[in-house]
């Protein structure tokens, strides 16, 4: 068995175990932490399959942006006060440090590495931008329309009623 296969098994195992952890763990913050681990595992699997671009998207958008949103939501809806300030050299901060170092190296390497672009032929990551903004610009326009619609609907649903402010 090649070492990359063993690595993949390991990554897949970690991903599955942390996905189970998301469902099993009772505390919501712990679930969120497991979810981050699962998403990072998926990113690692992508990068093992030579799809570096997908790995970065996975890290930046899911493990990054979406999880921050989740944690914000958890923080805002929880009643108890936030935990006391941690020491600088805590385990959490250490994991943040490791994650950001991994991310930094991925970003730094991305210009050099080949990745699979639309069309199935592996090529440099930089080839994605022109294809996104020229060949698929119609999709980009459509996304703008989608965002307007989503924004409008979501704002309407959470909008305060006109006379609600007076009573409150």
């Amino acid at each position, binding site marked *: 068995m090649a070492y990359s296969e063993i690595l993949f098994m390991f990554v897949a195992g970690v991903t599955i175990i942390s996905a189970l952890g998301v469902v099993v763990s009772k505390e919501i913050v712990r679930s969120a932490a497991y979810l981050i681990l699962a998403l990072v595992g998926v990113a690692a699997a992508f990068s093992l399959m030579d799809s570096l671009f997908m790995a970065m998207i996975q890290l930046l958008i899911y493990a990054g942006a979406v999880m921050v949103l989740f944690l914000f939501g958890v923080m805002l809806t929880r009643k108890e006060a936030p935990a006391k300030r941690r020491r600088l050299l805590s385990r959490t901060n250490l994991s943040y440090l490791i994650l950001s170092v991994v991310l930094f190296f991925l970003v730094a390497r991305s210009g050099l590495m080949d990745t699979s672009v639309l069309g199935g032929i592996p090529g440099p990551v930089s080839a994605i931008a022109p294809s996104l903004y020229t060949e698929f610009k119609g999709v980009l326009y*459509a996304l703008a329309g989608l965002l307007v619609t989503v924004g409008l609907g979501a704002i309407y649903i959470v909008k305060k009623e006109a006379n609600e402010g007076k009573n409150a």
Partner: protein
Amino acid sequence: MNPYTELLRLSPVGVLVLAQIILFVQDLVREDKRLSQYISAAALALTCLLSVYLASSGNTVSFANSTFVFNSLAYYFGVIFSLSALLVMLSAGSFLGRAEYAFEFSSLAILGVLGSFFVASSTNLVALFVVFEMATTATYGMVAYARRSKLSAEAAIKYFVVGAVSAGIIIYGISLIYIATGSVSISSVFSVTSQSSQLLDVGVILLIVGFGFKIAAFPFHMWLPDTYEGAPYPATTYLASVSKVMGFAALVRIFLVMGPAIYALGGLNWEVIFGLLSILTMTFGNLAALVQTSMKRMLAYSSIAMSGYMLIGLALGTSFSYAVLLYFMLTYAIAKAGSFIVAQFFESEHNAKSIDDYAWLARKSPLSAFSLTIMLLSLAGIPPLSVFVAKFFIFYASVQVGGYWILLAIAGVLNSALSLYYYARVIKNMYIGLAGESPPPQGPRLERIGYMIPILTCLVLTIALGLGEGTVIAVAKHAVTTLSATVF
């Protein structure tokens, strides 16, 4: 191409975009409920007229690197979308008058039509998915519009969860097709490697399942009755007309162009899948509609059954059957929107919710009761009304193909006979009341003009389209042949 010609050919969507901007500005400076309703109705009417003109004169224009190509087929669907949304906006007056905010509903209706228009014109699966989601998201907001009503919230949640799942299935199908063919464009020519032909098949099946949720084909229909019943009436009308036709538009767009190649390369007999779905859907919809007591729910189940008849057009896969399917969708959207609008009127005017509440309504509101009668008879398939003509031609198309496909026609005829029972019950209640109940003393009341405009429009169109079917089917045939002949 002359820039003015290009502008003219993009004008149906241009009008909608412009109307959207005007709506935003109007809400910012004046916040006038009536005005936003009028603006959107005027824009939809203009779009409808422009689309009728462009569809009948066979124009084509491409937009954004040919990601969207507006041809006769897209304009034809545009007519259905804008006309049904216009009917919704015309009938939404009293609902929006009572609602806290009116601007968002008009806006979402416009955005939904805009998204649907682009669905009918996209030449790329990813673009199709994005605009499909745009139109679907607009309907989520509309279903949840009555924010104080628990039913509306429940309907919206059910619809949203099913919609999200089906979106996931569609995007999964698209990615499998991409892996198999190396392309996301909807084109009649593509190639697969021998190992990945099964991937193509699985991807296509996932697409059928995903869009099956939208058109509420039999095993994927569970969300529809609850959502239609819980949503406010204008949203229900919109779902039954614009949203359902959009699901068919996506399927027609994909299978009309890619269908033959899918069969040749993947070996997947998708026509048989559509045939089975069709028989199951119409039979289930009609059987379930038989036992309903609530009018709105009965109409919801009957709209499932109508999906079944329309699926015959996809199952046969001939250019004639596609043309008849296009005609069917137009007649269905008008008759269905009309019946929901009359039901809305009766609920607000006479508080009539169940079918028993419809007793003697013909004495109180004769004109709308007559319109409902005509539209229900049309849906049941009574000549010479428009849905009858559509059903007749679609059964004729299946007999023409021959072989086992005749079974579709037989199932359709039997189901039409079955459906007459529950439609006739409503008509009987309206005209001769319930057994052992005497007619009410009061005479007819003046019917509200705000409802009568859309109701009479539907009535006139239901009769006129049945008599003048030749012109519409000729346009539809032209739209289908130009699309299948062109390679994008």
